[in-house]
């Protein structure tokens, strides 16, 4: 019974609009190009969309706990450049370098989290500074342009999959990673940690008074974001290869995606499924642009319009709630 109610509230709450938007965009794509939904091309779309969806899950943890992570774009770029430089085309180095990348992502997330929680620097500034530091450090290390090359094994997860399946042809590894990590994120939000994370974002004072270690969960959220950027970096590097522009502007796209999913900046509201659906909706929108052969330069404009409209809509909805002034009384998401 309670399961059912949770599911119902998930649909009627923040998740509803983004699912509707997703359906609308898919319908528009279907009209523009019916062939899009045939197995292979749909798989290709999902393969391309997977990194953003994974990043959105990571960013969700940070946003729902009341912070921002503006450093993910720079981190994705840094990870790809690190991989290329360290692997340098040698197959045997793939696994150790993946280990190094994971540690690096973890370290960056930890640094973001500790500076934000222990030094009380607003996350906007922390991660903005981190973005500058990463951007500069990576170019300093490589002398301006990325050097080296990726190994075939490294590129596998981003571009290949399980071949020879009926109907869909290839099941991309990226899609499997996206589904697996998505499920893990949903599970994580149902654990004690997830509950505390949302409570912290909603009202950190109340959460702290209730005995929650708010600094710990907030730091953990940054670490999760750093790890998601690492995985996204592996997938993007595999899919698109190495360039100095990898990851540029991605932090804003991913925040757009999360907010599009009905997650409220400032924390405490929204679901991780909706955040990932928001990322999928953005990618679908870009795919629609391709189908309609619109100039890609118009993308930002449409992205901007949609994000403002979505948040204005959400703000209007929350304003109609009976007790809007006191955040603590509206913990029930329904």
């Amino acid at each position, binding site marked *: 019974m309670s399961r059912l109610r949770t599911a119902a509230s998930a649909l009627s709450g923040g998740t509803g609009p983004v699912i509707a938007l997703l359906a609308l965009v898919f319908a528009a794509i279907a009209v523009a190009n019916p062939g899009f939904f045939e197995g292979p091309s749909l798989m290709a779309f999902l393969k391309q969309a997977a990194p953003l969806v994974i990043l959105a899950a990571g960013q969700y943890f940070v946003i729902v706990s009341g912070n921002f992570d503006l450093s993910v774009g720079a981190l994705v770029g840094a990870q790809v450049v690190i991989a290329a430089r360290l692997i340098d085309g040698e197959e045997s180095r793939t696994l150790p370098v993946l280990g190094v990348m994971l540690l690096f992502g973890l370290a960056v997330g930890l640094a973001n989290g500790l500076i934000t929680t222990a030094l009380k620097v607003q996350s906007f500034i922390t991660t903005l500074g981190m973005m500058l530091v990463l951007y*500069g450090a990576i*170019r300093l290390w490589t002398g301006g342009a990325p050097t080296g090359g990726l190994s075939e094994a490294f590129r596998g997860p981003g571009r290949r999959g399980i071949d020879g399946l009926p109907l869909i042809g290839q099941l991309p590894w990226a899609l499997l990673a996206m589904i697996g990590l998505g499920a893990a994120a949903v599970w994580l939000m149902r654990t004690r940690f997830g509950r505390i994370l949302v409570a912290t974002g909603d009202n950190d004072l109340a959460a702290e008074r209730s005995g929650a270690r708010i600094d710990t969960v907030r730091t953990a959220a940054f670490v999760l974001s750093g790890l998601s950027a690492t995985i996204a970096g592996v997938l993007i590097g595999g899919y698109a290869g190495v360039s100095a522009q990898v990851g540029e502007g991605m932090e804003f796209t991913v925040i757009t995606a999360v907010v599009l999913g009905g997650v409220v900046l400032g924390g405490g509201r929204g679901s991780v499924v909706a955040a990932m659906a928001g990322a999928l909706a953005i990618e679908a929108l870009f795919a629609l642009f391709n189908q309609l052969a619109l100039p890609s330069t118009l993308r930002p404009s449409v992205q901007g319009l949609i994000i403002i409209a979505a948040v204005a809509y959400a703000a209007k909805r929350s304003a109609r709630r009976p007790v809007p002034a006191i955040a603590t009384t509206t913990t029930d998401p329904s």
Partner: protein
Amino acid sequence: MSARRLDTTALIYLALAGIVALGGVAVAVRGGNLFSTANLVDMLTRTSLTGFLAIGMTLVILCRSLDLSVGYTAALSSLVAATTMDGDPDRIVLGAAAALLIAGLIGAANGAIVAFLGVNPFIATLGVGLIIKGYLDTEYQGPAGLVPTAFQQFGYTRIAFVPVSTIVMLVLAAAGIWFLRSTRTGHHMYAVGGDSDIARMSGVRTERVLMCAHILCGVLAGVAGLLLAARFGTGSAESYTNLYELDAIAAVVLGGTLLLGGRGGVAGTVAGVAILAVLDTVFNVMQVNPFAKDVLRGAIIIAAVAVYARRQLSRTARRPRFADAGTAAETGRS
């Protein structure tokens, strides 16, 4: 209250003096002279562009808002000015007026979306910025328009070693200080940033105050656009790639204005702008790798905010409104 605020500002000017002294010594050790005319001109020239943007940014941040669109607004108004003037000295006034009008309208749009639609300022101004970016990318592939030589003087003329643009910036900064200290709307900005609900209940028309701050911020971005046009001699859409908005936010925060609004001022911001400019010049003279500059800059911004956060913690504890939060934070740390 005002004595305490002066404290912070004094601290920032002390920091500025310290950085100038340290920079001077560091350059002297390398056998250079930081205070040679060329270096002074370089330093002061760097202050003007960020200065215009940062003064406007101070106003919106004081109101607990933000403007991520200023870089795009500046690029657009540089194009409007250059294409309207089109090399004709008689149309200088018309071109400048058109640019400022457009910039003010963009600011008004930002303000309206934030104040009346209740959209989070981060999202609202990011969205507006993206809309402008899409327009610029679609309409202008390269530089457009021509700025008459008479107007280019705004970018290059200087009196002794002080560029005219810096003088204009300082005059506007003085106007900003006067506005915040001596006008009703200025005082209301602090009230709205401190607590919007309390300000509204005290009879402040919070929407109007927000609109005013955003419009002024837009117009100042327009002035920055005019300076860009004067320096380049043409309108340039590409200038938004320099992420001026992040520089401006960094300067404001370095200047001691709280990102959460309600505290700070233009005087501190000018010092923040100057600190960034001095650092840039010192790095330049010492031929520090440009990428190392980004790293140092990011680290300095984080460190500065961490220092302010320390000071802020002890001070907010004295205010009854935050008495609970202060003690809770202290017990949490011990």
